[in-house]
């Protein structure tokens, strides 16, 4: 099953586990805010028992998301072939994206404050259609710049026009 979305005839590069850390921190913040809001909201209006119950539910959801984030992070991988970039990701909804270098319009490298703190960046490849969605999160900044330079060089060399 697995090799459908990650053919074994190419060498796949996994993304940094830091991606999971970043996502866990941001999920912790979201769940934390929700938990506090529910605890206070329910506690002050309905009763503290309900508030604590909601807290338990949120905590369980957070643990579940912790596991899912880990699985999702492990699912992200990419491969640079001679003529195209391949990106594979997803656990429940799986996707394999194949983008010929020559189709590239521009490359974005982005890193939010949290990502920077954990030393990762996202490389996104844009083609003439927004449907392409070739995004690789969780790259080491050096790897991200290397990929960016390589992709733009290859895009230049193999440019196909519109």
């Amino acid at each position, binding site marked *: 099953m697995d090799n*459908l*979305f990650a053919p074994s005839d190419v060498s796949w590069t996994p993304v940094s586990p830091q991606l999971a850390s970043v996502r866990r921190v941001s999920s912790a913040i979201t769940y934390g805010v929700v938990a506090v809001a529910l605890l206070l909201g329910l506690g002050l209006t309905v009763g503290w028992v309900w508030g604590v119950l909601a807290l338990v539910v949120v905590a369980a959801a957070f643990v579940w998301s912790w596991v899912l984030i880990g699985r999702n992070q492990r699912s992200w991988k990419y491969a640079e072939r001679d003529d195209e970039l391949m990106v594979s990701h997803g656990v429940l*909804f799986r996707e*394999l994206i194949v983008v*010929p270098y020559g189709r590239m319009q521009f490359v974005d490298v982005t890193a939010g404050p949290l990502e920077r703190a954990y030393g990762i960046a996202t490389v996104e490849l844009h083609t*003439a259609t927004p*449907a*392409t969605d070739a995004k690789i999160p969780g790259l080491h900044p050096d790897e991200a710049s290397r990929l960016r330079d390589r992709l733009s060089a290859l895009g230049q060399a193999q440019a196909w026009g*519109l």
Partner: protein
Amino acid sequence: MTEPVGARLHPLTPFVKGWGYFVGGGLILVNNESLRSNLEIAGIGLLGVLIGGILLGALSWWFTKWQLTDDAIRVDSGFLFRRTRIIRFDRIQAIDVAQPFVARIFGMAELRMDVAGGGKSDGKLSYFRYAEAGELRTLLLVRAKGEQVAEQQLAQPEPEALLVVPTSRLLGATLLSSTVIGSAGALIWLIVATMVLDFHIGLFAGLPLLLGVVQPIWKQVVGNHGFTLSQTDHGLRTKRGLIDVQRQTIPPGRVQGLLITEPLIWRLLGWSRVELDIAGVAGKDEGDDELQGAQLLPVGERAEVAGVLARVLPGFNLDAIQLQRAPERAKWLRPIGWRYLSYGADDQVFVTTSGWVSRRTSIVLHHKTQSVRLAQGPLQRKLNLADVHIDTPLGPTNAVALHRDANEAAWLTGAQANQARVARQAIETTRPHES
């Protein structure tokens, strides 16, 4: 700052552009109760509006200049905030000569240039005399295509029409479309319910329904009135419209895909609609959520559709393509529609079909493929199915081979990526100068 050189547009431009402003100003003044009693103030006010409008329009006209440089058309405009726009010839995807209603009265026309990635108003230049606009369009087309043809090539005579869509068929096709039938049915039910059954829903609900009946008819019958397709040296050209005559040229090599739509009732009559994906044209119509490509044929019979397809894609025969149906287990996800899901390919195009009420056949060209995606959801995984998306630039065509056997889909993904490369290389060797 150096004063830009170049030619000005037609002197009547401010009036044609601002007629709505004048009419609006006049209406407001006439309708205003307090002013109506005092005609003197109304007169002065109207005069003020008129003079102000003419002044502003004249200033904007005075400061707008266009010129052709070696490789681009340059437009300078604005008197407070100067703006220079340079549109390179090789970035122009298509050029239309359009005549909005008022402009037509004065025998004027505007030039609409479609630029890849540009918005609707980015490449508009208005107004010219009609003949002048035609000449300029020919000139720009020659430049855009990179041919070293002399500038003085005059506007070509109106080319012979390949086909004209009769208005009766346009009307019939619109009346038989699902939107109109649905809205009309609901409207009749509403009227009957209100009148006979004394069931007061209020006729307000009828307003959107009425709109649902009238709007498509208006759009199709008036907008596509006298739809004419003709062949010129610069590509296929369409001409349509009753009030606002629109012309569009489809340069060969810019076509990315085609979409053939056959709504339920049309299918019985053998009618279908053909739309084109052209770089730079998608989403041009304002107020439309749906992405609209260039209309190649608003409604045509089977033979016409085949003829049009052969024009756009020489050597292409839709019937010759072996379509592979989706496996039967796809019925768990598409109880009825799975029978109509299929895909096929030859060395030029990739074809998918879908839809059991309104059948859509998407045709995309291999060498325009932007990326290939293989996707699978949890239910599909249980059934060992997967989707293959062939992404082409924005437009109505959406080639997705839905619910294929997973192994086949994985193979198809790789094969399509290869096919796209092979097709592109083939194109490059035969047409080395294309974009």
